[in-house]
């Protein structure tokens, strides 16, 4: 049995030789340094590596945007696939023109990442590990964070936004002085971070790119974990895992109600005490 890298190389070569893809997006090692690369010839596959974890989905989007015909092969981990699914829902990717080499993360990586689903839906390399982050571990949600102290360290480098595979707006509100005052570091803790997180509420696939990219080491993922938990508890939706389902924030409350609350009844205008019942909670 070959190692995961060798298996991936074999699959990548086969895929390139079959001519189904214009190239394969993967990490390559070049003179001891690792970079993402778009492998178009079979010789190039020799340099393919799998670690460190680096999200390739944004690059796949870039390639597809630049070339409207190309079919892109991609060595995809669970987070990559979820990101691709969410990008496709936003109309940014064509999954028909994407061929995945599904790579399941091993136990160690899954532990380190605190990933809930460290495997893609179709696994080509590696074995599926059912991993649930233990409650109370660093990756578990719900832990109290002193955000005032944490956010004071922010350098406003926009690394979290740039690294995020799902920050796709051509014009970013974080760069507009009307919403976030420019030239102030640390940025206003409310506007910068809240707007960023708010835009990702129903998109975040918990890949951890923002936290990896942050030079100040802000625990941004904890915030997103909280949001994801709420989204799952209240609306039964997990971004990236439900391929056929659009974001539940769009349809009305009858189609996708909050799971734990009733739809408020029409209030009689003649009622004595109306304000209690009509609150939408």
């Amino acid at each position, binding site marked *: 049995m070959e190692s995961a890298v060798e298996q991936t190389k074999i699959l990548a070569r086969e895929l390139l030789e079959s001519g189904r893809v214009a190239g394969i997006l993967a990490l390559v090692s070049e003179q001891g340094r690792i970079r993402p690369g778009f492998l178009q010839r079979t010789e190039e596959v020799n340099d393919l590596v799998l670690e460190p974890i680096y999200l390739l989905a944004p690059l796949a989007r870039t390639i597809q945007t630049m070339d409207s015909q190309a079919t892109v092969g991609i060595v995809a981990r669970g987070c990559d696939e979820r990101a691709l699914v969410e990008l496709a829902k936003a109309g940014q990717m064509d999954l028909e023109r994407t061929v995945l080499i599904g790579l399941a993360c091993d136990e160690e990586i899954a532990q380190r990442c605190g990933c809930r689903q460290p495997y893609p839906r179709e696994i080509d390399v590696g074995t599926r590990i059912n991993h649930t982050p233990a409650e109370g571990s660093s990756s578990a949600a719900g832990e109290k964070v002193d955000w005032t102290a944490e956010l004071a360290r922010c350098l406003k480098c926009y690394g979290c936004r740039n690294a995020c595979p799902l920050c796709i707006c051509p014009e970013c509100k974080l760069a507009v002085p009307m919403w976030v005052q420019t030239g102030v570091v640390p940025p206003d803790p409310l506007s910068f971070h809240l707007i960023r997180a708010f835009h990702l509420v129903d998109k975040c696939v918990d890949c951890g790119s923002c936290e990896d990219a942050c030079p100040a080491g802000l625990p941004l993922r904890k915030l997103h974990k909280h949001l994801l938990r709420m989204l799952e508890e209240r609306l039964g939706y997990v971004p990236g895992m439900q391929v056929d389902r659009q974001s539940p924030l769009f349809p009305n409350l009858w189609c996708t109600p*909050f799971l734990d609350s009733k739809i408020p009844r*029409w209030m009689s205008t003649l009622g004595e005490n109306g304000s209690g019942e009509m609150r939408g909670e």
Partner: protein
Amino acid sequence: MKESVEPKVLIFACDWCPGMGSDRAGQDRLSLPTWFRLIRVDCAAQVSGEWVIKALSEGIEGVMIMGCHLDACRHQEANHRAHKKLETLRWLLEGMGIAPERLCLSWGMGREALPFQGEIQRFAANMKLLRKEGKA
């Protein structure tokens, strides 16, 4: 945050139901707090999360969004979407350690002055409570 005697509250009210409700409250000479500012918008769904975030970051203590009854929006089901969108913002505030009560969503009040008064007074009581407890 600058301390004033009364809490600073910003209200985004849909032009239709709550707007009429507020008008009626004024016509009926109901006693209303003086410290809230009401901005009339075309629909509650027009209020984006950024507006609320910006208001909070500028020192507003509480934001209320008032829209029409949930099954009586003039723009089909726009207020359903507004409700969902802004509810996620409340989760976000909670995750950031800010009391989610600072964002109040209220649906109803077509020409109903008393509920309008009640909602505002209840929200004011909440804000005062938060201040007393010293919550963020």
